[in-house]
């Protein structure tokens, strides 16, 4: 860190970090401490991302940690951020929704321009110049369709958590938490601790799925302890854990009134005679997370499946663009912190014309390797029921925005002969609405029996036409061919 003292302030390169979750914060601290000026941009009113989502200040929470894990890490990040903000090494732009990152063909005055809409009205755009860009945009929840999933009262598991952590409000009084994945555990315990009656945690992974991967799990004793901690809390709050079960249907008229759950057999189909109806006003449901890749895609970065491709230094294949955290693959907050730290250090060195020495981030590298191996192992444990698409009735709406039913998707594949997702989309309008397929892509692909294809969603956020019309001179260049 001796180089920091010798660096005259005017030559500090500018790094734009998009996303102030664990990855973006770790990257910001690492970069700012090593000679770059960081502009940290986030759409939320406060830093923290999904994991460290903070209650609104007006709510005056004296003990927000009651809703969080690893609070000490958050305190460390927050203290570090405040110190860099005070010293002018970091500029924090909250409430800014980035809708496009432009790679300037003429790199003066800077190689990149980040365009962000000022929220919540979103009718004014600001442009931020940067020498390098670090994408730490996180993930959103994947929810597979089932009959009744559009009823008010059905929310994503992460959404329930967001209302609780950010608004200190419960999405209902009696909740079923269902789907698959490690996120269901903190959601169920969080809801129960905050006073909701959690009727059941319904996880489609069966005990044998965990047993088959016992070796992977045993290699991460800290994660096992975390899981055991959640399990103990579930017991304490009297929440029944139904492993190897799934929600067959959500029932209600104007809003959710109950859900039917059933045990899954070895063939992935519900076992006859096991269906039970559970009264509840809330169903918090999720089937894993999907990386936010729109900005990377717009820049022409290579994707690996659903995630942004990065090298050992967390560089994308576009020079000057780094990515870290769940945008590069889902693996939890610890992995996001490690990746962010490495990305921030690499960016700081490279933007100052130096070649970084990976030995300097060896502990973060080890944490990254361990976490990735663990989550690769988990991936096979937490999988939706193999035959989930068979449970989706023809009347079920699969694309929520455009109200396209499973029947219409099946017709497009069957009698109309659509062989891929794009054709299904063109024939049915599935995925063409407001959310641009973010919510329905996996569901439509599953019902259609087609492979999901990464969708191109530009701009990354809906932009009012007035903002686009007011953009000065050049339009953003099209991404290079891949």
């Amino acid at each position, binding site marked *: 860190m001796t180089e920091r003292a010798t660096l005259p302030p005017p030559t500090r390169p500018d790094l734009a970090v998009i996303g102030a979750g664990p990855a973006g914060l770790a990257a910001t601290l690492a970069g700012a401490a090593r000679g770059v000026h960081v502009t940290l941009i986030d759409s939320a009113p406060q830093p923290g991302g999904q994991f460290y989502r903070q209650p609104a200040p*007006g*709510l*005056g929470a004296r*003990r927000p940690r009651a809703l969080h894990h690893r609070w000490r890490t958050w305190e460390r990040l927050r203290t570090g951020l405040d110190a860099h903000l005070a010293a002018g090494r970091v500029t924090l732009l909250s409430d800014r929704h980035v809708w496009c990152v432009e790679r300037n063909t003429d790199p003066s005055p800077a190689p990149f321009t980040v365009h962000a809409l000022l929220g919540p009205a979103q009718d004014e755009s600001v442009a931020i110049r940067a020498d390098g860009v670090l994408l730490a945009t996180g993930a*959103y929840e994947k929810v597979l369709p089932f009959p009744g999933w559009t009823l008010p009262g059905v*929310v994503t598991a992460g*959404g329930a958590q967001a209302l609780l952590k950010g608004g200190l409000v*419960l999405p209902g009084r009696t909740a079923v938490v269902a789907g698959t994945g490690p996120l269901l555990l903190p959601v169920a315990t969080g809801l129960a601790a905050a*006073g909701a009656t959690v009727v059941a945690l319904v996880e489609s992974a069966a005990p044998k799925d965990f047993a088959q991967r016992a070796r992977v799990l045993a290699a991460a004793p800290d994660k096992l302890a975390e899981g055991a901690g959640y399990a103990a809390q579930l017991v304490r709050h009297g929440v029944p854990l139904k492993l190897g079960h799934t929600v067959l249907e959500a029932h209600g008229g104007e809003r959710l009134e109950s859900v039917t759950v059933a045990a899954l057999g070895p063939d992935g189909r519900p076992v006859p005679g096991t269906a039970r109806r559970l009264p509840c006003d809330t169903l918090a449901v999720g089937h894993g997370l999907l990386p936010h890749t729109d900005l990377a895609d717009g820049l022409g970065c290579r994707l690996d499946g659903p995630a942004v491709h990065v090298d050992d230094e967390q560089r994308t294949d576009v020079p000057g663009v780094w990515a870290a955290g769940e945008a590069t693959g889902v693996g939890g907050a610890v992995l996001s912190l490690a990746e962010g730290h490495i990305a921030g250090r690499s960016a700081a060195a490279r933007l100052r014309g130096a070649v970084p020495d990976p030995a300097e981030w060896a502990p973060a590298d080890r944490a990254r390797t361990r976490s990735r191996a663990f989550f690769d192992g988990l991936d096979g444990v937490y999988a939706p029921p193999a035959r989930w698409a068979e449970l989706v009735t023809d009347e079920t709406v699969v694309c929520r925005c455009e109200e396209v039913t499973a029947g219409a998707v099946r017709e497009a594949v069957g009698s109309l002969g659509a062989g891929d997702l794009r054709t299904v989309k063109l024939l049915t309008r599935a995925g063409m609405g407001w*959310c641009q397929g973010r919510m329905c892509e996996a569901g439509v692909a599953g019902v259609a029996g087609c492979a999901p294809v990464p969708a191109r969603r530009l701009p990354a956020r809906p932009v009012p036409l007035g903002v686009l019309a007011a953009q000065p001179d050049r339009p953003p260049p099209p991404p290079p061919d891949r």
Partner: protein
Amino acid sequence: MNPLELARAHPEAPFTVRFDGREIEALPGRTIAAVLWSAGITAWRGTRGEGQPRGVFCGIGVCFDCLVTVNDRPNQRACLTPATPGADIRTQEGTGHDD
């Protein structure tokens, strides 16, 4: 126990907003979605095709199910938009535009 007690919250003075003409109490800092949920309201949009009720789904600004009209501006995401004193919040039907 409720979430405010759990986090030992001492909120600033509440204010009122209107939802479809009816007065609702709101705590400062809460989003419109959080205010409506805490008042027991779960739906504030009718879909364009079938007029089906919708409210919050993803909770983080991705799904657009929670669109609502605020002070005559349609298509505001209730899960991202903070409630402000006196805000006039109305159920949104159809596309949210005059068509």
